[in-house]
């Protein structure tokens, strides 16, 4: 079977929900971040596929992807900076150990 739009959409949706699953089940901040990266990638895949198969005359999807990648990088950078800071202040990046915020 010739792979086409639907195949790619399947992959991206699967990837998206894998990411969501990871985000739900993970407790480690870094792994949660990874899950988010998977989600963002699935989105990128969607954009590219749509751009390619449906609306090739404009490059909206493509540009969107580019910007998403850039933002993902920025986000990851800030997140990791915070993680490192957090780790330095109490030596754990497990969310559930980081529960000082209680009332």
């Amino acid at each position, binding site marked *: 079977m010739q792979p086409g739009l639907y195949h790619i959409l399947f992959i991206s949706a699967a990837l998206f929900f894998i990411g969501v699953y990871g*985000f*739900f*089940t*993970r407790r480690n901040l870094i792994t949660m971040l990874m899950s988010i990266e998977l989600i963002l990638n699935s989105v990128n895949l969607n954009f590219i596929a749509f751009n390619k198969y449906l609306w090739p005359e404009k490059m909206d999807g493509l540009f969107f992807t580019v910007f998403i990648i850039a933002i993902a990088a920025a986000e990851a950078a800030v997140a990791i900076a915070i993680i490192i800071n957090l780790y330095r202040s109490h030596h754990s990046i497990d969310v*559930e150990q980081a529960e000082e915020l209680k009332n």
Partner: protein
Amino acid sequence: MPNALTIALIPLLPLAGFVLLGLFGKRYTGKYSGIIGTALLLASTLIAVYTAYEYFSHSQGGKYSNIIAAKYTWLQFAPGVSIDMGLYLDPISMMMIVVVTLVSLMVHIYSLGYMKDEERFSTYYAYLGLFTFSMLGLVLSSNIFQIYIFWELVGVSSFLLIGFYYDKPSAVAASKKAFIVTRFADLGFLIGILVLSYASGTLDFNTMISTLTSPESSQLKTAAASSFLGMSVITWGGLLVFMGGAGKSAMFPLHIWLPDAMEGPTPVSALIHAATMVVAGVYLVARLFPIFAITTPILLELIGWVGAVSAVIAAIIACTQTDIKRVLAYSTMSQIGFMMFALGVSGYGGEAGLGYTASMFHLFTHAMFKALLFLGAGAVIHYVHSNEMKDMGGLRKAMPVTHITFLIACLAIAGVPMLSGFFSKEEILLAAYHHNPAIYWIALLTSGLTAFYMFRLYFNIFWNKPYHAHGEHHGEAPASMKFPLILLAVGAALAGYIPFGKYVSSNGEPLASHFELSFSILPVSLGIAGIAIAWIMYRKQSGLPEKVSSGLGGLYKAAYRKFYIDEIYLFITKKVLFNLVGRPAAWFDRNVVDGLVNFTGNTTQMVSERIKNCSRAKYSSMLCTSCWLR
């Protein structure tokens, strides 16, 4: 005829006394308060007597018309329905203003001596003023709501005067009781007013009576047509109004307040609880008499029976009481019963209306001799400092004036011929004889009992050996107290000679007085028998009373305990109303209604507490939940 303003002064002068003494009495007028009050009342009395004189001397062919001297719209409920403050002149109101002002004046004068050491002297006179004002307003009412207003004011001044010795718990209790019991009766009065006013479309006496008695009036037809529990609306209205009257007039079973009301100063008892206020009920029935007589005769019958039963019960109880004021109180109740059933056995107009005239006549004479009795008793109490018969005896030497006047009054009330009570009582008995023999026999029995207990009282006070020596022997009462006694004794002796039927009758037509010697023999001899029995039992010191009382056993005890009516009331109020209604209501409010509100609050709090814990839950599971909820 005096002009309206002058007539208005009759009630307003005592009111002025009240305001003046009430506001400034304590600080400014002090011991002159009594003089001021008395002076104002004297003026009022003079005007009243003059007015009555003028009124009665201007008949139109022997018939006296009803005059509305003044009318002022006090409160307009709806077109045609308004409370008017009016001055209503008719024979009975004229008779009443004379009685009220006269007795009140006597009491004012008497109190100058009797109350002179009292700390709250001016307050006392202020209250007297208020009472006199209210009573005069009541009798002069032209509007049923006006009568209700003054009715209530009379009640409150009675409350004030009974509770005059406010630091005495018994006085406080008695005043409360008097007010509440009459208030309960007034509830009936009020609803009665609502019923009658709705049926007749007016509050004005004249209009109301003419609407509710003329068979053609459409209001009457509709009202008579609609019935409730088998009685027509008018009957209900009348019954309820009568309930008010019965309460004020201490008719069985609403009489329980009257004996207790003797806690007040004795002159007050003379004024309010003997001569004036307690007859307001009779007056009210007389005022609405045409409605009762023409539209709802069945109700009139009931009134007759209530009066008769009250008369006899009170007489029986009076025989057993030892507190002299209480004896007098029950005697009052009994006599009012006479007046009431006299109305009950009366018809409207002509000969049939004899009972009406008799009732009013008896009201008039009774005011004299009963006030006299109370004032005399007051003098005695003043002298011995006790209300109990056992503390008295042999006082005829010490207080001759009191003795003689008291004797006259006793004779008058016992129905001894040639004294006032005789004439009025004979008429009543005659009326009863013609209309309702059963009541007649009861009345006859009662009049015998009356003679008995009055003389029991008389002998116990003035004869026999002094029960114990009195420490201090001050003289008899001061002149200010003697004067009213004498004046009233004259009245008690002579009032019967007034040709009453000429002036007062059920329909305004003059009524010739009937006097049949043959008819009088039975009552008179019964009266004398009563006196004789009293003489045997109490003058001879034979120990007979004890024997009789123990012989009667349960009956005596029941009568002594006033047939346990007080206890029944107490049970109903304290046990039933307080415990079964009041307490549950209060509990319900605190726990259920309030509880619901608190419950709402607490539930919110609890939910909040619950989900607050939820917010503490682990971060990722929270997200999980959050997405799950989506």
